[in-house]
């Protein structure tokens, strides 16, 4: 693990029990390797290493810590800092219904997350309505209909309408007329480089002005996480959902996405069942990335 490797580096360099230019170089190399291996984006790693080096060299010697402990603390603190504080809660809109829209790349987990959100929010006593805006993927509408049924929330789809902007507007009207607290809009997976589809999601957002635009990102995403996040951010992303974190991915994409957008990671998907949605804890994430 990273902390064991650090121990080895500082131990063999002996030294006078403080961080020096020479022992920090090897520690930074090890850190770079650890972060790249954890799928943190190359540019983000470069920036992070520079920050850590500056902090390490400028650090007051803490008499109570060995150089190993001190360096590790600097890394941990900087990672937690970069990942943002915890408990960025989901916002409620100024009037009913509050609208949440989910967007992201193909297969990232939007429809399933929609179901999880539906279940979570209805358990809090909210009247929830779910509407699919994915008119492309085979059986996508049916998938959300089944998911809504399983999570005990209402489902609305205006039959025959194949314009996502129009479907979204009708869903809002239906939610208003029937006194729903929360409307969840599930969108089709799309590539950030597909200009036509990015224009579609901009049009939907502009038409219904969601309180939350949640970018759903697969937790196993590699270097591409920065490209995805940077391209989606301008449509008005308000928060990130990182999915499939129940596997053994180190989750470096979290750092990349946070760095690229500055937006809070609001939720973590931890399984396929509809209760598998947790709030984000940066310190747990850091242990995972540094493992």
């Amino acid at each position, binding site marked *: 693990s990273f902390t064991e490797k650090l121990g080895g580096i500082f131990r063999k360099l002996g030294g006078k029990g403080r961080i020096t230019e020479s022992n920090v170089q090897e520690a930074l190399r090890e850190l770079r390797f650890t972060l790249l291996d954890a799928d943190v984006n190359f540019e983000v790693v470069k920036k992070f290493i520079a920050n850590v080096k500056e902090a390490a060299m400028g650090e007051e010697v803490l008499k109570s810590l060995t150089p190993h402990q001190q360096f590790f603390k600097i890394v941990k603190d900087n990672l937690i800092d970069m990942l943002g504080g915890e408990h960025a809660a989901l916002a409620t809109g100024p009037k009913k219904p509050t609208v949440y829209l989910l967007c992201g790349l193909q297969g990232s987990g939007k429809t399933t997350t929609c179901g999880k959100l539906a279940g979570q929010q209805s358990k809090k006593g909210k009247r929830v309505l779910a509407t699919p805006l994915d008119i492309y993927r085979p059986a996508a509408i049916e*998938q959300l209909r089944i998911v809504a049924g399983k999570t005990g929330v209402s489902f609305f789809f205006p039959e025959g309408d194949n314009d996502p902007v129009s479907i979204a507007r009708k869903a809002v009207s239906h939610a208003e007329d029937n006194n729903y607290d929360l409307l969840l809009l599930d969108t089709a997976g799309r590539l950030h480089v597909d200009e036509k589809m990015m224009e579609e999601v901009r049009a939907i957002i502009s038409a219904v002005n969601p309180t939350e635009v949640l970018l759903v990102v697969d937790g196993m995403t590699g270097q591409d996480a920065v490209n995805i996040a940077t391209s989606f951010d301008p449509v008005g992303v308000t928060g990130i959902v990182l999915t499939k974190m129940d596997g053994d991915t180190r989750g470096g994409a979290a750092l990349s996405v946070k760095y690229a957008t500055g937006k809070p990671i609001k939720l973590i998907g931890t399984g396929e069942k509809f209760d598998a949605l947790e709030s984000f804890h940066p310190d747990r994430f850091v242990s995972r990335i540094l493992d």
Partner: protein
Amino acid sequence: IGRAVKIDDEFCERLEEALLLSDVGASTAALIVDEIKSKAMEKRPADAEALNALVVDILAEILESGAAAEPLAPGLNVVMMMGVNGSGKTTTIGKLAMRYKAEGRKVMLAACDTFRAAASEQLEIWAKRSDVPIIRQREGADPSAVMYDAIQAARARGADLLIADTAGRLHTQSNLMRELQKIQRVAVEKAGVENFRAWLVLDSTIGRNSYNQVQQFGQAVPVDALVLTKMDGTARGGVVFSILKEWRMPIMFVGVGEKMEDLLPFNASEFSRALLG
């Protein structure tokens, strides 16, 4: 004697950066840069263009070191598609059905994902698109039972290719890995299928985790081939280098979109050229 182009630190750094940004991974990138550096010093390419061609060749060679793809055997071939959640299995099967049917095969599909909402409905739509028969049961049925039924139906109709869809699963879920083993066992031992293959579908936007996926899926069911999806995005799929340095297996196809025709045979040189950007 022409002057060779300089293989200096700047070249190595730029090359390593291109590899890292393509998800090649830190240790594999370092290995590859060393290999390229020593080969380039030996071959002494005359200019930047020749050097680039040499780099592409070396990368392609690593990719082609995987075993060659096995052609389909006579009689019934069963291909089980497996992979993590959302990687593109169902869509890839839809594309393969059309491709193999166009090659004159009698194709059938088996909807062995009996877990996820609307999974069978999704595959059913793909089956209709290429007009091939599909065997499915209701949600919650035993996937091995669907496989068994599908094999019987395939034999009855004289099909020579049965492609089975399975539910997405993480390789860390040991009970689900056992489920895959059971489906294979039922096909091979119970139904006596002689030509059974398992293809692992990898999403090219995924980083290092794809390596773990090959390792752990492979421990459950031998991986006969890989399919790399979503190469129409900006991800480069470089993780395949570390995979192919460890295991010998062909990359059969590359998914380049969501439509029926968006499936290309894997080409090592084109892949390597695209990777270098």
